[in-house]
């Protein structure tokens, strides 16, 4: 499939996904409720005008509202929140916050998972394999909230013991790269550890498959040292199925890190999705859906590119 055809298809998919999200949100959410609890209650006409101003008035025909929204999207304007802020600008800030978190979490999780999985396969049924298997199942059994709090307690002990305040447990940080890093360590680990647990199992299985392959035996018969055989022939081939899984995880995580963002008070996309639903911000919900769809499709492209790099010469 030509690259242009693919881009057109992907764009169409993003439009369809976010339109559906917008329609669903527009039909089920009720922005008017934001004004309901006020005393004195504002006149209906005022509320209508305020809602119409931001294209959230349920008394306006649905189709008109949709057309207003979609034509805005076509111009790069994702609409406004109920209190008049720009959805685009808000999401752009938050996407950066989430992107840093997810990238760090995924990188650490991938490296850790691949390493542990590979070692477990190489030492199949020996102590490292059994130990890592136990830890993996423990990590998978623990909910993210619990893991996050355990890490927070650990971090406080660490800070106390070292007499510093290196590890920060809340917020995003704004005092330059080092400050950002201090705020990033704990949430990234919260994300990375369960990911590493899952990845390590995938990688272990993929490695076990290839370690028995004839070509690994051929490589040993050539007189290559064991380490070279494992890395250059087995690991290299086992990465092919695992990377596809890794890349797609990235797309899914972009809005899937809600719990982590909430616990660590990071103003990211996942957290924003929850508040947007609470305040009936139809446009924000649709905007986040668009970002998530774009992230997933980008992951698909990345997976494809990686496959071509890792599995060269293969006709598709």
């Amino acid at each position: 499939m030509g690259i242009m055809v693919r881009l057109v298809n992907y764009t169409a998919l993003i439009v369809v996904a976010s339109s559906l999200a917008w329609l669903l949100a527009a039909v089920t959410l009720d922005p008017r409720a934001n004004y309901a609890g006020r005393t004195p209650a504002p006149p209906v006409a005022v509320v209508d005008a305020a809602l119409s101003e931001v294209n959230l008035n349920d008394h306006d025909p649905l189709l008109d509202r949709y057309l207003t929204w979609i034509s805005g999207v076509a111009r790069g304007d994702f609409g406004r929140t109920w209190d008049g802020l720009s959805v685009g600008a808000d999401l752009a800030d938050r996407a950066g916050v989430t992107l840093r978190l997810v990238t760090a979490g995924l990188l650490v999780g991938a490296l850790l998972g691949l390493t542990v999985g590979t070692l477990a396969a190489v030492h199949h049924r020996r102590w490292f394999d059994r130990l890592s298997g136990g830890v993996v199942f423990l990590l998978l059994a623990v909910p993210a909230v619990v893991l996050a709090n355990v890490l927070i307690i650990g971090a406080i002990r660490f800070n106390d013991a070292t007499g510093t305040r290196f590890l920060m447990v809340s917020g995003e940080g704004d005092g330059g790269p080092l400050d950002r890093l201090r705020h990033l360590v704990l949430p990234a680990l919260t994300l990375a550890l369960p990911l590493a647990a899952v990845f390590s199992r995938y990688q272990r299985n993929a490695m076990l498959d290839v370690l028995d392959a004839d070509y690994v035996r051929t490589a040993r018969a050539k007189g290559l040292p064991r380490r070279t055989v494992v890395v250059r022939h087995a690991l290299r081939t086992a990465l092919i199925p695992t990377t596809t899984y890794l890349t797609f995880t990235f797309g899914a995580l972009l809005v899937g890190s809600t719990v982590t963002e909430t616990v660590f008070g990071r103003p990211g996309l996942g957290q924003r999705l929850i508040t947007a639903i609470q305040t009936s911000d139809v446009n924000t919900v649709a905007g986040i859906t668009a970002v998530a769809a774009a992230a997933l499709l980008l992951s698909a492209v990345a997976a494809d590119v990686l496959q071509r790099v890792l599995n060269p010469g293969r006709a598709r």
Partner: protein
Amino acid sequence: MIDVTDLSVSFGATPVVRGLSFSVARGEVLGLIGESGSGKSATALAVMGLLPRTASTTGSIRLNGEELTTAGEKRLTALRGRAMAIVFQDPLQAFTPVHRVGAQIAEAIRAHRRVPRKVAARRAVELLDLVGIRDPHQRARSYPHEFSGGMRQRALIAMAIANDPDLLIADEPTTALDVTVQAHVLDVLKTAQRETGAALLLITHDLSVVARAADRVHVLRRGLTVETGTVEEVLRAPREAYTKSLIAAMEADDRPAAARPVRTVLEVRDLVRHHPGVKAVDGVSFDLRSGETLGLVGESGSGKTTLLMEIMALARPQRGSVTVLGRDTATLSRRERRRVRRDLQIVFQDPSASLDPRMTVGAIVAEPLVTHGRSAGRVPELLAQVGLPPAYAARHPVHLSGGQRQRVAIARAIALDPAVLVLDEPVSALDPTIRAEIIVLLESLRAERGLSYLFVAHDLPLIRRIADRVAVMYRGRIAEIGPAHQVFTAPGHPYTKALLRASTLRDDDPKIAAGCRFRPRCPLYAELPAAPRSRCVTEEPEISGDSGAACHHHPGEAP
């Protein structure tokens, strides 16, 4: 060179090799022969020090006087690929799929010698050239899947001889290859061995390979030595009954031709099945008559399997027609198709893959009966017919041997009393002695029930023994068809001749747009003068009538 004394290998409590002793001298070829489970591959792995950790070894293996059984992993790593090298079977899997072939050969060189990358790469190209790969510069940059089976096997040989080993082990080096390519690869192996002066340990189940290439032979059975001697002695005058049965299984006799009532049960006309980019079946016509066995032979990729699947689909083909017992499959209604399916059943090559592991034998055999609304009460009778005790109905396929599983597959196939049985390589996954038993079973079933067989096999002696007529497929078309004795004794097509003599053909063949598709590999075409040649280039040869050869220049054809 290599001295093996009293070698025993066992996996857990199961002995695989028991008290094996042999030696191979410099420049000598020892054939180690036996069926699967005879311990021959375990012996090869034991010598290379590549047995899995669960295996335990006793006895002595000495290479140039150095004891290998007690050598450390580091020392073995240094010896592997340099002093001793191995060519594995199944070349499809033997190369790492993600690295270029040339790079993998160069890697073998650099594992033992400190040479720059460029030098190793150049040497890899030379080695590919030595084993007869054309255009080695370009081919070195190919990935393994871009090679044909024969080319991969050659490349494996190139890799094995990269460091001039003293001992070369070839484990079933030709088993996965087509007949016409086998001979070529054996020649390459012998050349490589001569060039390096290595001792060659040739492991195979195929006596003809040993007869062709070995000096001495060592017959193994269930880990024990049956007999040993020079190839002449053992093949001409075998002392042991087991060796005799192996030799008998190899030799072919014509099947006695019998007069039969002529009724066409399966009629295929100009059948075409094109996949994108591949003309898998490209105009095939033949008849199958009641009570006869039609043997279908051809190399892998010749379209045999696609042809069978087209017939079994009982649907409208892309072009041409399939008629089963007088009913054209293109016009069948859903209900009629079900009815016709009873008359046309299939037995697949690998019974361990074609039987559902979760079902009992009884359930497997009963399934077609129940599906077609008949009583499952016939199961014990069917099992008895294929020579299985009724108690086996309660077992699962895992608890059966390969031969027993194939018997179950046959029982399932005959459950609905079909008229035609399609047999897709039904015995090629089995050992020679088991193979003979299954063939006897198939023969007696055919005689008892008046079945017709469409029998696909790449084993020519087998086809010769059981087929009444033979069709030879090449590249989606029938190259030659006729009575078995005629095709085997007086083949008309140059391709059939090459197949029968297992003589060498080029193993790369470009696609041909027009004219005779065998032309690029045809030894006859190569020698023709220009005038008769032009016909081969412009005109696709056809077979007229129910026997003949698709060649413009075979003896029966007018010049």
